């Protein structure tokens, strides 16, 4: 299968990533290159999928009250804050 410029634009919209026309063309070429090689080498494999090599099981910590990072330290990295919160563009209509 071949990835088109339009397909790349659609993917960009899915992940909230603005793309120029030039980028869409370049990324379509990139994906086609990688996927062609994948088609050649991976098709037909029947092994069981291995998602992770770690044999570890989930380790749970005690459900207790911890000490969070100080609010001022966390907010200090935000570009915009207001009243002790992260400030974002309006979400709800009037």
């Amino acid at each position, binding site marked *: 299968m071949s990835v088109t410029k339009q397909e790349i634009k659609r993917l960009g919209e899915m992940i*909230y*990533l603005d*793309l120029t026309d030039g*980028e869409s063309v370049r990324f379509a070429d990139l994906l086609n290159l*990688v996927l062609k090689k994948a088609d050649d*080498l991976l098709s037909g494999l029947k*092994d*069981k999928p291995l998602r992770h090599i770690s044999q570890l099981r989930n380790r749970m*910590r005690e459900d207790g009250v911890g000490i969070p990072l100080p609010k001022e330290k966390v907010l200090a990295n935000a570009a915009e804050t207001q009243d002790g919160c*992260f400030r974002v563009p309006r979400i709800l209509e009037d």
Partner: protein
Amino acid sequence: MTIAGMSVVEILEGQQRGEFTPEEVLRAHLDRIEAEDVGAFLRLCPKGSPGKGLLQGVPVALGDEVCTEGVETTAGSRILSGFVPPYQATLVGKLEGAGAAVVGKTNLTEFGLSFAMEDALFQRTQNPWRSGTTPGGAAGGAAAAVAAGQAPAAVASDTGGDVRIPASFCGVVGFTPTYGRISRYGVIQHAPSLTQVGLLAQKVRDIALLLKVLAGEDPQDATTLPGELPDFLEKPGEPGSWRIGIAPEAYRSCAGGDVYQATEELWQRAAEELGWQLVEVDMSWLDLAQVARRLIAAAESSSSLGRYDGVRYGYRAKDAQDMRELFSRTRAEGFGEGVKGEMLLGTYILGDQAHYEAYYLQALRARNLVYKSIKDLWQQVDLILTPTTPRPAGEGETPLEIFTGPSNLGGLPAISLPCRLVGGLPVGVQLIAPAGEEGRLLRAAHVLEKMIDFASSRNGGGQRA
């Protein structure tokens, strides 16, 4: 010998003999950074007098993906410009607790996604062996710093060879441990099932010391290995009659002629001088492993990197009218081309059932095939020996991670040692061990390092620029 350029062990021994103080060691390295600008560091952050411990007074460079509380940390991306972590990576606390002095943060490709250091966004890092030549990536700044004597050791993440590839290009030792051996808490990463924390230094014994300090379970990282730690330094110089797996046919088809010849001559010498038993093995899956690792990394990256949106930290697009515009423009302006391509590839193979089955699931099947193939090899051999990279620093067709990626797919410890000069530039040789066998790996590497005697061959065959 001047202090800057000494190995970790030489610095510790010099301090013990009273030849210099930790403060003089730090000053010497800062002076070297100022005198020889190879673009290794994005920023310096030396503190006051270091504490006491196993690494007392040893300057250590950190890849800029390692969170340092109060010191800007960007992972090489514009989208994290100005990000000052409110917490410290576990490994930084361990280093400082052992008396090491964090000297600065080193350059890398954006989020460590590319092995080509030319893709780094903030500045050009030079290979100290030849100006204008790439040091390799992703941890090119860390390797260049160690090679230039600007820090005797460095710590950076390794997702497919990011530490071993630049170590090979820059003529230093690069090591990645068993998956989970070193905590990744506070290390910004893009492909969590592949990433291990790697180490760079001048000598194998330096690596063993650093590993002793950094290894261990961390309640903040559920993937760290529980249980007692093996003694990595036990009998470090004992020669062993190791059974060494080599795959001449696969290496010949992937590596350049000079690199193949250097590796072949090395294993022949090891057989003659060290008594190592050579066992030819099948590694015809190298190409398969490369593609599988590439797709798995892209899939995981498309998820991991989705957290950057301009709201809580890092770069934020100006004057966005709504949330969609804020996210879309922040990512468009904040991410470089490599990251965008990786996110799109990952989304393509995860975002549709047919693509998921054709690519992501097949990549996981390939991962299992490679994992089982290597596991079977351990019935025949104790270690695997490969070239580290298919070529010295420079252009080429074969993916740079062809020999290093498989150990990340399998979570295996591996080490790259400087082997010899090819066309005046270093190339490395890689040893891979079974999971949990860092002791075996480091003992064998130490013996091999002594046999190679790279410093002497370097003086005979060419000098670092």
